């Protein structure tokens, strides 16, 4: 498996350089190589014009490269300065000298870190600053930040960006990994986009638009809202009322992850949920699937109250589920494809008769799915792990669609999926919608949301705070609503909408070749 190939990136000193790409595009692997956690098979790294080779993170630190991980690595019961000194005792000792150095660094870069505070008393943003300081303390001149904003609220993001500008002014180089368009545009001096493990382009943040960046990242022309007619009916399929879930976080403090969430989806409607990751989308899906206990609220599917039923009963009642993390929730990686076809539908035909499995029936049906959904595999006896992400996803979609669901929950359906499969997946979701399916679409890709949805709701800190009509909203305005800046019904300036749609239309025309051949294949397979 090649995670990275032909990556060329040049980062200038004293700049904030953003590295963009979808999940699974290969950003993390690249960072691991830069930080010495993994060795490249070929290629070179040069720091300050001098070729270097890292075999451990210590080598990278010695060269002045430091990394701030997405998940903080701090000891809660230690104070800030103890955490910073930990592992770097040889630098400035463990006494007053170390503390003085921490203060000095904190002032120099305007981080405002209090050395004597206990880490467990700090909020997420402060902890992140401690992590940054920890790296600076070890003499780093190049900082790698792995999705630093994923855990922050908007104000904290702004504060972080101020810190980054400060660092930049002091001559520190920052490599900033993100897949959030608007953040990157606001803070970066230069942008490199990675797709499928290779650099596909550099962009100048002063000139590029969010949409152009998105297209670079995704690599496919995005669907546009007006290229189809509405299939929304009046029949209500899913009704969710007053969902509330509170669960303790890592520190044991109760946090409300879903607060009074109510939504309805009608037959033939795609409801898109927009939101910054970690604002309750995953919990909303799990609540509807019955995987998380509810504190309050009801879930009704096609008139049947499912609130108190278990996941299996909900699936049998007609909920299809395309999980966000298919390796964790969608597949048995070491099991053959036909066993994966049974997963989630073991009580239904053709997988079982009574309490007995029907392997022959499941095998035959897996063969059908492989043909109809264009799953590229040499056979149905190979393990799911040997398929590519896109083909795994097509298998999952085929499986879920095979039990005539009433509601399809699609969480990031095209994440980590190659371009060809992406277009097929979009088409499959649309054709399901035409057949009267209700779809709950969760996506971090705003253009995908605008392109597919009939209605968009914005989730922010566990609440549905805003709604929008995809025909009258731009990704930019949706993005600002996702940070909690706008509430209620959002509508963009019609001129901006028209402009965005024109760009989209161009894209659709340009790409008519590829998708049409795919549909032809499907028809043949159907016969």
């Amino acid at each position, binding site marked *: *498996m090649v995670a990275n190939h032909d990556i060329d990136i040049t980062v200038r000193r004293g700049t904030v350089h953003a590295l963009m790409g979808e999940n699974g595009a290969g950003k993390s692997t690249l960072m691991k190589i830069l930080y010495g956690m993994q060795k490249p098979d070929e290629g070179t790294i040069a720091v300050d014009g001098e070729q270097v080779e890292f075999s451990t993170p210590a080598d990278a630190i010695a060269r002045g490269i430091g990394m701030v991980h997405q998940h903080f690595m701090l000891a809660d019961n230690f104070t800030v300065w103890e955490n910073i000194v930990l592992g770097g005792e040889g630098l400035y000792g463990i006494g007053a000298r170390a503390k003085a150095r921490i203060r000095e660094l904190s002032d120099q870069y305007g981080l405002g870190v209090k050395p004597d505070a206990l880490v467990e008393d700090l909020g997420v943003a402060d902890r992140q600053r401690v992590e940054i300081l920890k790296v600076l303390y070890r003499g780093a001149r190049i900082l790698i930040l792995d999705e630093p904003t994923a855990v922050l609220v908007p104000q904290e993001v702004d504060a972080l960006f101020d810190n980054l500008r400060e660092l930049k002014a002091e001559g520190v180089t920052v490599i900033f990994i993100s897949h959030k368009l608007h953040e990157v545009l606001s803070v970066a001096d230069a942008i490199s986009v990675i797709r499928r493990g290779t650099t596909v382009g550099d962009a100048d943040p002063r000139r590029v638009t969010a949409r152009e960046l998105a297209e670079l990242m995704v690599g496919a022309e995005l669907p546009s809202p007006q290229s189809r007619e509405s299939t929304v009916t009046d029949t209500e399929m899913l009704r969710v009322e007053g969902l509330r879930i509170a669960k303790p976080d890592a520190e044991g403090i109760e946090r409300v992850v879903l607060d009074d969430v109510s939504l309805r989806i009608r037959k033939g409607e795609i409801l898109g949920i927009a939101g910054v990751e970690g604002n309750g989308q995953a919990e909303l899906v799990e609540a509807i*699937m019955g*995987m998380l206990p509810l504190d309050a609220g009801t879930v009704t599917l096609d008139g049947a109250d499912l609130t108190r039923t*278990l*996941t*299996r*009963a*909900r*699936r*049998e009642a007609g909920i299809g*589920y395309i*999980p966000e993390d298919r390796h*964790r*929730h*969608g*597949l*048995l*990686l*070491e*099991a053959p494809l036909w*066993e994966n076809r*049974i*997963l*989630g*539908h*073991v*009580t239904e035909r053709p997988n*079982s008769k009574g*309490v*007995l*499995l029907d*392997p*022959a*029936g499941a*095998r035959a049906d897996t063969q059908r799915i492989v043909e109809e959904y264009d799953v*590229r*595999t*040499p056979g149905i*006896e*190979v*393990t799911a*792990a*040997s*398929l590519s992400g896109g083909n795994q996803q097509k298998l999952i979609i085929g499986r879920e669609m095979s039990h005539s669901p009433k509601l399809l929950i699609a969480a990031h359906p095209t994440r980590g999926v190659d371009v060809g499969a992406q277009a097929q997946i979009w088409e499959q979701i649309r054709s399901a919608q035409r057949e009267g399916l209700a779809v709950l679409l969760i996506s971090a890709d705003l253009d995908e949301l605008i392109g597919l949805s009939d209605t968009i709701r914005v989730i922010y800190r566990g609440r549905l705070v805003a709604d929008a009509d995809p025909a009258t909203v731009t990704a930019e305005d949706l993005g600002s609503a996702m940070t909690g800046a706008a509430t209620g019904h959002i509508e963009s300036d019609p001129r901006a909408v028209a402009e965005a749609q024109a760009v989209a239309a161009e894209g659709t025309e340009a790409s008519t070749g590829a998708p049409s051949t795919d549909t032809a294949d499907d028809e043949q397979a159907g016969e």
Partner: protein
Amino acid sequence: MTSPNPPVAPAAKRSLRERVDLERIGLALAAPVLAVLLSLIIAGGLLAVSGRDPFDAFSIMWNYGTASDGQVAVLNKATVYYLAAAAAAFGFRMNLFNIGIEGQYKLAMMFAAFVGSQVDLPAFLQIPLLLVVAMCVGGLWASIAGLLKVYRGVSEVISTIMLNAIATAVIGVLLVPGIFAPKTSGTTNSIQTGKISESSHFFSIETQGGTLWGFVVIAVLVGVVFQFTLNRTRFGFDLRATGRSESAAGASGVNVKRMVITSIVVSGALAGLVGLPELMQNTPYFGQNVQTGLGFIGISVALLGRNTPIGIAFSALLFAFLDASGAQLPTRGDYPSEIIPVIQGTIVICVVVAYELVRRYGLKRQQQKVGAELAAQAAAAAQKEVAA
């Protein structure tokens, strides 16, 4: 050993070559065979270093194993090992490590012996009664670990180890004159339950090599039901799915909590059977000198047999052969019988490492194969297009 699944009529459509994947079987067999060879080499080396002739020792073992009395002894031992291994394997298939087989079978054996000594029904009722009592006691005892895991997050590894110690104490409390042991035990120092009634004796087969325990039938039955349940029923699919990925199983609708409790109870119920061959065929009472360590042997046998019913049948026979023939070593020559645990230990260590290596290798190899096949398909398609 062609295919672990008995071929069923509708599946016969698949060609024989597809079902018998020679490479996969080769990979599966390579690890245990290599492990056994390696452990023999190590054991032989040890014997040679201590100034003894390893080949003579091995030939004593081999000769015993090929004689008919040896074979009967091996089969009887293997019956017991097989049951213990089945109990361990059932847990392993669900990713549960039931170390508590030891305590479960002893407790079950004691209750079965007590019931057997108090009740005297006709054999066709008495024998099933004892089986059911033993399985219930084993299952109930194991359920404590299951409940603790599900509701309190206690690792079953820890709780079953503790429950083993508690089981020993419980036996100590109950196995006293007036409770489980008859009051008039008189002169003997060893305390034991009363003898089980005549009707509790399981049938046996007299051969020229000695008495073959009829319990081997139960062991075979357990293996068949095990295989069928796991591979042919919805419950078995749920269990295997949970063992492979708890999160995926949960999302697919498996009630993971209930699954944990069910499977640990089943494992415990199977463990309950472990002591019965001894009780119902050999020593008609439960006393302080009951055989210990069967639970741990079961874990080793299950590991070597890769938790499949057929695999553990072979590994139970191997372990039984080593134990039975190893007992001959000190009597027929100057060989320490301790060499047997050395062989068994190295087999288990080697096999655990080898299986993991083979698993990774197999997975990677398949990924490469799939990639290559797809590339070939794509190339063929492109060629056709060019030709057209």
